[in-house]
């Protein structure tokens, strides 16, 4: 992005305006474009997909009225929330109550600055990219705590405190799990990490050594916990605390919390795709830069969205973990495993500085075998599905 803006300046587009101001204005513009052109349509899509996937797993149909196959359901929900009455409890702390959803949304939207959509499409390729991402998602904690406290409701308070404890705790395994790919790439920048991988699965960091594979799993679990997704959705446990910290919210304020949650699914997927799955890398199949970047964008989107898809499966299947079990999972299991991965990767790098092709290919084959077995089981179950029990399995 910066190179593009520099070219525009030297071409004389912004004569007379100081350079710093140009950067700031253009960056804001790009950020706004990304948010409104990409994030805003993405969230209703995620809402629809989640509800649809969820329903299919539960042998129901899911939203299918609004628009073809119900794809406009998310937009309908958004409009409904905008039209609702904005209720603020009498004894609630008005400034904090009003401000809390915005903090949560900031914590989510600010991550899009460093998401590498393709080799040329990234708003700012910070050289501390992944660290910035981890830091900015911690804003969500402040927002959630504010929401829980300002609601003047004991149940919201419990939900807010649980959530804060959960997110803060799971930052540690997430951070530890980010470190092996950073070690391997030698840089914190997102584009740098992607450039250190290749387009082929055996060049991804996921299959580089067993420690990075476990790291990917640890990161995914920790990121799900940070995003308050089941099995870690105790703060918004519907059957216990109605909606946890968001109980007293209604209308668009409520929708903002859940906008952040569903959008965060995509961000989790994007980070996993960047760190472990080679990001937007595709084999160079054309000289046309625009086409190449477009294919990179599509590949990245698919890789990132797949992990959001998996998170939906997990949410539909697994029950909730209790709060003390959640904490013990984090501190007694994920953190030691994270440290082991870090040390293991470092030792591996000393022994095999260029990587061990045998292990890489071997792990790829193993993953392929597991995938094949998975698809065979899926086919077995689809064949066995009786029409009166299950609807036709297309989405």
């Amino acid at each position: 992005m910066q190179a593009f803006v520099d070219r525009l300046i030297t071409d004389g587009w912004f004569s007379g305006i100081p350079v710093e101001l140009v950067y700031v204005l253009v960056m804001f513009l790009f950020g706004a474009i990304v948010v409104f052109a990409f994030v805003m349509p993405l969230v209703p899509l995620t809402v629809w997909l989640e509800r649809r996937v969820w329903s299919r797993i539960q042998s129901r149909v899911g939203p299918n009225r609004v628009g073809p196959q119900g794809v406009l359901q998310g937009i309908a929900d958004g409009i409904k929330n905008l039209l609702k009455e904005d209720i603020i409890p009498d004894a609630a702390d008005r400034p904090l109550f009003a401000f809390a959803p915005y903090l949560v949304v900031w914590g989510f939207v600010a991550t899009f600055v460093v998401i590498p959509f393709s080799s040329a499409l990234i708003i700012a390729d910070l050289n501390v990219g992944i660290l910035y991402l981890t830091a900015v998602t911690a804003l969500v904690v402040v927002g959630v705590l504010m929401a829980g406290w300002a609601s003047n409701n004991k149940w919201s308070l419990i939900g807010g405190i649980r959530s804060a404890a959960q997110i803060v705790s799971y930052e540690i395994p997430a951070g530890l799990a980010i470190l092996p790919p950073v070690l391997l790439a030698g840089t914190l920048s997102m584009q740098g990490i992607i450039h250190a991988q290749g387009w082929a699965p055996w060049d991804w960091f996921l299959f580089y050594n067993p420690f990075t594979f476990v790291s990917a799993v640890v990161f995914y679990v920790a990121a799900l916990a940070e995003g308050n997704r089941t099995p870690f959705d105790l703060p918004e446990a519907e059957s216990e605390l109605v909606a946890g910290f968001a109980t007293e919210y209604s209308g668009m304020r409520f929708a903002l919390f859940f906008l952040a949650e569903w959008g965060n699914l995509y961000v989790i997927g994007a980070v996993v795709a960047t760190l472990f799955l080679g990001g937007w890398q595709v084999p160079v199949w054309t000289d046309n830069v625009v086409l190449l970047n477009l294919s990179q964008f599509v590949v990245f989107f698919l890789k990132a969205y797949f992990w959001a898809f998996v998170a939906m499966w997990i949410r539909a299947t697994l029950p909730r973990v209790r709060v003390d079990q959640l904490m013990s999972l984090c501190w007694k299991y994920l953190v030691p495993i994270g440290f082991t991965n870090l040390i293991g990767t470092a030792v591996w790098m000393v022994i095999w500085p260029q990587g061990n092709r045998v292990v890489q290919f071997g792990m790829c084959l193993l993953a392929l075998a597991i995938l094949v077995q998975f698809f065979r089981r899926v086919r077995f179950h689809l064949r066995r599905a009786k029409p009166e029990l299950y609807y036709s399995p297309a989405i």
Partner: protein
Amino acid sequence: MSLAGFEVEVQRDGDEGLTTEEMTLNMGPQHPSTHGVLRFIVKADGEVMRTAIPDIGYLHRSIEKIAEKVGYHGFMPYTDRVDYVSAMQCNQGWAMVCEKIAGIEVPRRGEFCRVIASELGRIASHLLSVGTMVMDIGGYTPFLHALREREKVNNLLEELCGARLTFNYMRIGGVAWDLPAGFAEKVTAFLDQFEPLIDEYNDLISYNKIYVERLANVGVVSVQDAIDYNLVGPNLRGSGFKYDVRRDEPYSVYGELEFDVPVGTGEMGTLGDCFDRYMVRIKEMRESCKIVRQCLRMMPPGPVLAKVPRKLKPPVGDAYIRVEGSRGDMGWYVVSDGSEFPYRTKIRTGSFAAMSIIDKVSRGLMIADLVALIASFDVVAPEVDR
């Protein structure tokens, strides 16, 4: 500070003036996971509860008093509402106590119809119970799978008597209608596809590690406590005590049927924890399938309803019978003064006793465990309050 007579203890920590208070929470009558309108006043030290005092009466409808106004025959639809999740057994209880006090004998085919209806109702009730228990723990999918099966049972019962929830199927002296044509085949088809689904359900959720961790060793009720607090049904059997009214004081045709009485075995934790009570219900569904199959085979032809006078005037006296409802031993007591309206009706339900033990068992549990505990006792508010 006091709340309806409950004092809050304020502890002072040394002389720094640091005070800690227990937090008094109201798990109010409107709550997504109390099964019906139940209220708990929970005093919690952070997440750990010190007491959880139930406050009942939100669903009291004076059903027992209404019996004195509508008469013996007219009370039958009201019995559905005593426990609307498994209404057939309540119908049977009222019909049996009236038959006992009036000395009416039910034709054999009527008895078999009653048992089939009761057991199908038990399957439906247990499906709902385990489904909502899993949903309270957070697994949304098994709840819907259980309800899918419950819908099939409801379809069968709708074909039988026209209603899906409040059946009003049984009458004093038998049942209202005979089984419709083709009913036996439909029930057999349902049972054939339902029994493997119980295994599928177990694969999905019952032995899931997260689920087991939530339930094992939580809310342990010892056998002595269960007897002292008058627990019945799966709550009592979950603690290992093998008592089932159908086996120990057989009524209707249960004496001729072969079925097991599952008890909790402490397989995943301690004997008498929430998981045992859950497993007892799952196993009972299988036993009910067995019973229905036997009844369909053994049913003789004949009438289903005895001749009972329209104005039933039983002799002066009283009668008490027990039926094994889905939530345990339901006791029905009626006092007659010779007129066509009962002098006094009393219904003794298992959920009322279960509410009384919740305070004792919940000391030291977390708030999340309270939800699991209430669900495992299968408390339904209409039974508690009537």
